[in-house]
């Protein structure tokens, strides 16, 4: 029992620390990536190559004056960024980071908890994430914040449907909602993206919309809405909102890698394991490293898209969500069903 508790505490601390550090350095990476894509150098003053820049930014955020508007609903105003941050962190719980470590002949999975409805849990928590933005925008008592919050919530709702339907097609092929099961299945066969290319594309586009990243970053918009839902926020409460976006990006990348790109598995992994003569623990760590390679690629991809594509107009955004992605995801489900029927895989 104590062993179990220690194991859980250790893995929880590791996963959250990792998520926070990665989100922290995503802010740095974002600035570096945007810089090199625009032929600039980017932050390079704080520490070697500017590596201490995130710490400097964090310090700056803490040092700023904290302003709560008189007309704001104080509790909701504070609750908003808390929810955004909390839900962003909570999603890391179900992601499997490796096939498991063995100590004293006992297998410890590298996942905080393996609930059998992992995908549903993810969707539930991610949908609560929009409340953070909505409550924050509403409680600010400012028309621009409210407009930003409205945009954010309508955008998230419309894209969540297409996202969920894309996942349904995936779940039809995997037959399970547990993320560790889905990852394990991709060990035997190909990665799911081979079976679900259209679903992957829909999921990817929706992931951009869910994380409020460009080209779907309409909730925050300097020219139209001053700042969007966080117009009235200052100090670390603003920092929480911005930070939550980066954690969300990390989680979305991890989910994309897990659901569609084999999770912690990599091609010919057992041959590689045999060839190198690795034990289970070393092998699991190698898997984790490669999983992070995939995750970092997706994080880079998020940034890459942000610094390439101009944003959508709001009606184009809604048009894409409801009139293109939604029918496409239905089509995807039908095609998946037909394919499964043709190959005799119907469960």
């Amino acid at each position, binding site marked *: 029992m104590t062993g179990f508790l220690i194991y859980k505490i250790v893995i929880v601390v590791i996963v959250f620390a990792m998520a926070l550090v990665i989100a922290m350095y995503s802010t740095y990476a974002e600035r570096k990536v945007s810089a090199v894509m625009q032929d*600039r*150098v980017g932050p390079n003053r704080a520490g070697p190559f500017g590596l201490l820049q995130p710490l400097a930014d964090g310090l700056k955020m803490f040092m700023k004056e904290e302003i709560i508007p008189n007309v704001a609903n104080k509790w909701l105003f504070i609750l908003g960024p808390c929810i955004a941050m909390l839900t962003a962190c909570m999603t890391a719980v179900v992601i499997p980071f490796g096939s498991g470590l063995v100590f004293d002949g006992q297998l410890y999975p590298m996942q905080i908890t393996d609930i059998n409805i992992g995908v549903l849990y993810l969707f539930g928590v991610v949908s609560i994430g929009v409340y953070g933005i909505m409550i924050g925008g509403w409680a600010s008592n400012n028309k621009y914040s409210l407009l930003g919050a409205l945009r954010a919530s309508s955008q998230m709702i419309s894209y969540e449907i297409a996202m969920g339907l894309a996942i349904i097609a995936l779940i039809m092929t995997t037959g399970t909602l547990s993320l560790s099961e889905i990852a394990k299945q991709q060990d035997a066969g190909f990665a799911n993206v081979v079976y679900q290319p259209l679903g992957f594309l829909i999921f990817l586009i929706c992931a951009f919309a869910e994380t409020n990243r460009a080209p779907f970053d309409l909730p925050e918009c300097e020219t139209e809405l001053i700042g969007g839902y966080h117009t009235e926020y200052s100090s670390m409460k603003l920092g929480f909102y911005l930070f939550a976006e980066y954690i969300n990006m990390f989680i979305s990348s991890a989910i994309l890698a897990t659901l569609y790109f084999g999770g912690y598995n990599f091609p010919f992994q057992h041959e590689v394991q045999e060839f190198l003569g690795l034990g289970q623990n070393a092998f699991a760590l190698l898997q984790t490293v490669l999983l992070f390679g995939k995750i970092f690629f997706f994080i880079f991809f998020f940034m890459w898209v942000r610094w390439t594509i101009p944003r959508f107009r709001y009606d184009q955004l809604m048009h894409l969500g409801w009139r293109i992605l939604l029918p496409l995801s239905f089509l995807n489900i039908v095609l998946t069903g037909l394919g499964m029927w043709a190959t005799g895989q119907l469960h």
Partner: protein
Amino acid sequence: MLTNRSKIVVKKEMSFLEKLWIPAILSGMMITFKHIFYKKATVRYPDQKRPFAPVYRGLHVLKRDENGAERCTACGLCAVACPAEAITMIADERQKGEEALYREEKYASMYEINMLRCIFCGLCEEACPKEAIFLTDRTVPSEFLRETFIFGKDKLVEKIDQPIDVRIRQTQDVLEFKTDPVPLHNQMYNGQ
């Protein structure tokens, strides 16, 4: 169609592939990816300073001669030449025993340039018959008060132990120009 520069706009329906936008997005992303490897345009300023142009006209200096005496004789030609009326001076007579300080019998006891008025045209330098005032490749430092921009002799005269190199602006053209008895810009008045 006079200039042959007008473009004929063709408004054709987009093909299915174009309507997907994905090829266009991918080609755009390839462009941004290529730019990662491009040469950076940034000059990392405090570490790396771009040299001024050889003809750059910055903060003035009042030169001393090879013995360390001030060259300026307060003739006032610079003040007369100055289009912005930035230069003020008071002349004084050199006393006995001050030969090491001032080169000639007359010197400027007060010499001020208002750096907010100055337009850094370099006419004072051109007018100076004693090779005393030069514009250098230094910049006027920023200050908070207007008064501090009136630079007196304490800031303008070069320190004896830190002579300021003005050779960068003394290009061959400038030297020739100074020795020319009929300067180029006066030739038109002489009908030449």
